[in-house]
């Protein structure tokens, strides 16, 4: 399983801070599809993705225990 973290508007839309997804051996884009289907998170296309706290891309293949975070456009500062 991989752990998927949701923040800000994604967290509110999904009603949860994190979900576990069976995506080992799959690319990040697979997790995105699952979230779109199961939680209606269509805005995910505007997000960047981090795996284990480092930015990466949708092609990254996931391993057991990975943490995936979908990062909405940031607005700190």
């Amino acid at each position, binding site marked *: 399983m991989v752990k998927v*973290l949701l*923040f*800000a*508007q994604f*967290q*509110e839309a999904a009603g949860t801070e994190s979900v576990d997804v069976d995506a080992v051996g799959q690319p990040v884009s697979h997790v995105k599809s699952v979230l779109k289907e199961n939680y209606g998170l269509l805005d995910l*296309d*505007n*997000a*960047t993705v*981090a795996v284990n*706290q480092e*930015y990466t*891309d949708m092609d990254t293949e996931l391993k057991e225990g990975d943490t995936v*975070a979908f*990062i*909405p*456009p*940031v*607005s*700190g*500062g």
Partner: protein
Amino acid sequence: MESKQFWITEKFISIDDVVKNVVRPEAGAINTFIGTVREFTKGKRTLYLKYDAYVPMAEKKLAQIGDEIRGKWPEARCSIAHRIGELSISDIAVVIAVSTPHRADSYDASRYAIERIKEIVPIWKKEHWEDGEQWIGDQLESKAYPSGHPEQEDL
């Protein structure tokens, strides 16, 4: 006192706490940037803000900005604190302090830090107005992402 050089906190940020992390005999100049909650943005009145963050990654990215600054300005030292949770008008959201031997570099490195925060640090702001609320996206003001998100080389 916080012992970290780069941190996310739910508590009030003391400017002095951030500045004292960068004071040293080699420095003659310290530039700080303090981001506060503004009441009006484009005529719309903000009542309060809420900041959310992916805390461990945000602290890691703040430290990365410090490393980038050391790469570009080897004699610079940097400390950054960002607050999360609910903030009122005029509350301090972020404090950046950069010390350098000479003043020009302190301005340039401080400016670099705030721009990078707005590019790569996973922190999100939700504005609460009289008539609604919204998570605010990219506020770089200076840069558009044609693809709708930062390119790989920006991260």
